[in-house]
């Protein structure tokens, strides 16, 4: 099997400036971020949280997409599963983004202040969950679990390149079955810990699902962009066609709708019931100029990509797909900004070079991780028994 495929595939390197752009963004981002920390410590810590959430979205979300392919037995995405695997490697840099958070817990999280908790009955009630020790234990645990499954799943996939052993697929299906429920729980509690607890009085049962929907969308956008980009330049493998593009577009489209559905459900129910212990969170995102960001979020995260990918031809148009992927990544950053920053600044919308520095670093980091992996490894899982079927895939 693997011999037959390896004749179809010969590795072609990414254009040299691809890695260079990544490194440049990474370097510029890094310098700006260090500067930002000197200029405004607290503000940078909040932006750092956006960075952490973004890298989590891309890394863990990509690993979830890989696991879904195995578990669902999908074949259409097999020819470019390796691309998603490269993005999953972003998991490895999550700790680097998490360490600054550890040193700034007091600036970020109100509940870490013992004197505030002592005065506040509700916070005191939560202190068995929201306390620094348990919080750190959870962070370490989440990241450790993600590392573990990253190494287990990716190792088998890589090994298959040379051996072509179908048993490795079976093994990965089993690993994916274990990973997916664990993913569901870790991503939920990570979002509760890192984002929801910024406003420790606020609570919403759907919050984990909300973050999950954005996560998958962002991870998928990166994969879509790179697959279309590389395939249009002929850098992947012969056989990836409009049918694959359509499926990627439809996948994106489904999650755009899913995100909107979850976001609407959360807003609608809180608005309608009008209970003060819940509404204040949305009021924060309406007053002091935040109204514009809230409205922009609806347009950027839902309306534009919805109409941009609604029609059948648009899901197969490489230019449209690439544009929409970048757009969705931008939307995800806006979403994270909207979730996190109102806690930092209630009466004005902070928009300055610091807010640019961290996304630049984030994008730079993702591209750099990707180009390092892409340089070392095959871009296509050539030993995968499903590869041939994936290339033959037709709608």
């Amino acid at each position, binding site marked *: 099997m693997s011999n037959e495929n390896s004749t179809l595939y010969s590795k072609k390197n990414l254009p040299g400036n691809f890695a260079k752009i990544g490194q440049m963004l990474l370097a510029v981002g890094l310098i700006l971020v260090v500067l930002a920390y000197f200029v405004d410590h607290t503000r940078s810590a909040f932006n750092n949280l956006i960075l952490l959430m973004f890298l989590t979205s891309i890394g863990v979300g990509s690993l979830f997409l890989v696991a879904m392919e195995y578990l669902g037995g999908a074949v259409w995405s097999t020819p470019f599963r390796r691309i998603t695997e490269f993005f999953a490697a972003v998991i490895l840099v999550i700790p680097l983004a998490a360490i600054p958070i550890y040193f700034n817990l007091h600036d970020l999280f109100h509940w870490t202040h013992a004197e505030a908790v002592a005065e506040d009955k509700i916070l005191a009630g939560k202190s068995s969950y929201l306390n620094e020790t348990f919080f750190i234990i959870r962070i370490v645990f989440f990241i450790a679990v993600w590392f573990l499954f990253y190494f287990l799943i990716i190792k088998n996939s890589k090994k298959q390149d040379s051996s072509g052993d179908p048993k490795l697929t*079976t093994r990965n299906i089993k690993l994916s079955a274990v990973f997916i429920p664990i993913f*569901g729980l870790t991503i939920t509690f990570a979002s509760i810990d890192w984002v929801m607890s910024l406003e420790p009085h606020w609570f919403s049962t759907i919050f984990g699902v909300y973050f999950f929907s954005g996560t998958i969308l962002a991870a998928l956008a990166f994969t879509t962009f790179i697959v279309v980009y590389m395939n249009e330049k002929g850098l992947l493998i012969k056989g990836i066609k409009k049918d694959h593009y359509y499926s990627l577009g439809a996948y994106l489209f489904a999650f755009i709708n899913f995100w909107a559905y979850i976001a609407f459900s*959360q807003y609608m*129910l809180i608005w309608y019931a009008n209970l003060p*212990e819940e509404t204040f969170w949305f009021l924060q995102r309406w007053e002091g100029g935040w109204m514009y960001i809230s409205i922009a979020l609806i347009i950027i995260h839902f309306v534009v990509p919805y109409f941009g990918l609604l029609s059948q031809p648009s899901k197969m148009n490489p230019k449209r797909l690439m544009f929409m992927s970048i757009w969705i990544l931008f939307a995800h950053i806006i979403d994270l900004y909207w979730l996190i920053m109102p806690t930092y600044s209630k009466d004005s919308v902070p928009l300055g070079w610091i807010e640019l520095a961290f996304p630049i670093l984030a994008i730079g980091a993702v591209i750099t991780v990707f180009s390092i992996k892409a340089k070392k490894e095959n871009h296509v899982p050539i030993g995968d*028994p*499903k590869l041939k079927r994936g290339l*033959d895939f037709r709608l």
Partner: protein
Amino acid sequence: MSTVDYTREISVIEGQPPLREIDEVISKPLETKPDKKFYMAISVTLTMLLIGGIALGLSFYYGTGLWGNNNPVGWGLPIVNFVFWVGIGHAGTLISAILFLFRQKWRTGIARFAEGMTIFAVMTAGIFPLIHVGRPWLAGYLIPYPNQHSLWVNFTSPLLWDVFAVSTYFAVSFIFWYVGLIPDFAALRERTTNKIKKVIYSIGSLGWRNSNRHWQHYEMVYLILAGFATPLVLSVHTIVSFDFAISILPGWHTTIFPPYFVAGAVFSGFAMVQNVLIFIRKIFNYEHIITLKTLENMNKIILLTGSMVGYAYAMEFFIAWYSGVQPEQFTFLNRAFGPYAWAYWIMVSCNVISPQLFWFKKIRTTIPVMFVIAVFVNVGMWFERFVIVVTSLSRDYLPSSWAYFTPTLTDFGILIGSFGLFFTLLLIFTKTLPVVSIAEVKAVVDGSQPSHKDH
């Protein structure tokens, strides 16, 4: 570790039967007289229907005081049953529309039947809100129209949104089902020798001649209707969940309700479809069309949605504690350890624990075991609605008005009647229309697809 051949697609229809044989097998129940088993089955379901009819007749004569509904549990069993039956309907649309958009070929064998179940379940569900209003003959006022009294419905009430959502859902499901039936009507029209049947089938087939152009239009319409039905199916149970979630009652007002209700609906619906199909495939000899693999796939979806429901239960519990809001915390402790603890633990063990057994391939592919688990799921999902409706209402904000709700015999009579109605309609369906789509099944038999390979 078993070695699976991943290089080949698993056939949806086993044994590559000749296309003619598919015609024969599927239309056989329509061309033969009902046998003894059929009469036995329908006598049971008609008896159940009769019990429901009597219970309902008594309720009309003596009034709704025959039911257990009282303060503070004003919603009682009718609403529990309503949500249960609407939920059952969801699997049909998921299989026929959403899995169609996902291009899952294994849906072909079961789609028609599941859609039929959707229609019957929504019909059954529709009875409950009507009788629950107490004066069903005034239900026409739910439809907003300009009238001399300048009387308008309350547009801000989710109960009214339900009227719109469920009726739209029913209409679209029915059209979708009928459009799928058109080519089959034509096939039956050609086969039948009975004159009356021929007329009926001819009208149903709308002049279908299997021409290229017909197929082209058909495929287009089918795709568009699937695209319509998909958001509709989500909206219906979302709005049903709004009935609860927009209130401020602890245990009802929680933001995860919409996706949680949709997952629960698909969960119970799949369990019901699986239960009935196990009999259908055996009795009608459809084992090569509705294969064990199809049943296994359904069990996987039951596992997936069951886990989602379990996630929602856990999240509700955790956030109730985390919120620090006392009534919230009390409500959930009351559910698990209060007077309705028995119902709560039936719900948890049936909905969360039993489907987890489907992690094992052996259990997923053993018919008696999967049947029992799916029955548990249905029981559990009925109890889920019971727990939601009853526990929250029976102990609301005002402890002086707390009361224990006990359903009466009339309540159960109507519940039995609803099952009677559903299964009677289903049995009639099996003898009047093809329960498996003839045209679609032919398209997924191995070797019938045009080859895409570059030769």
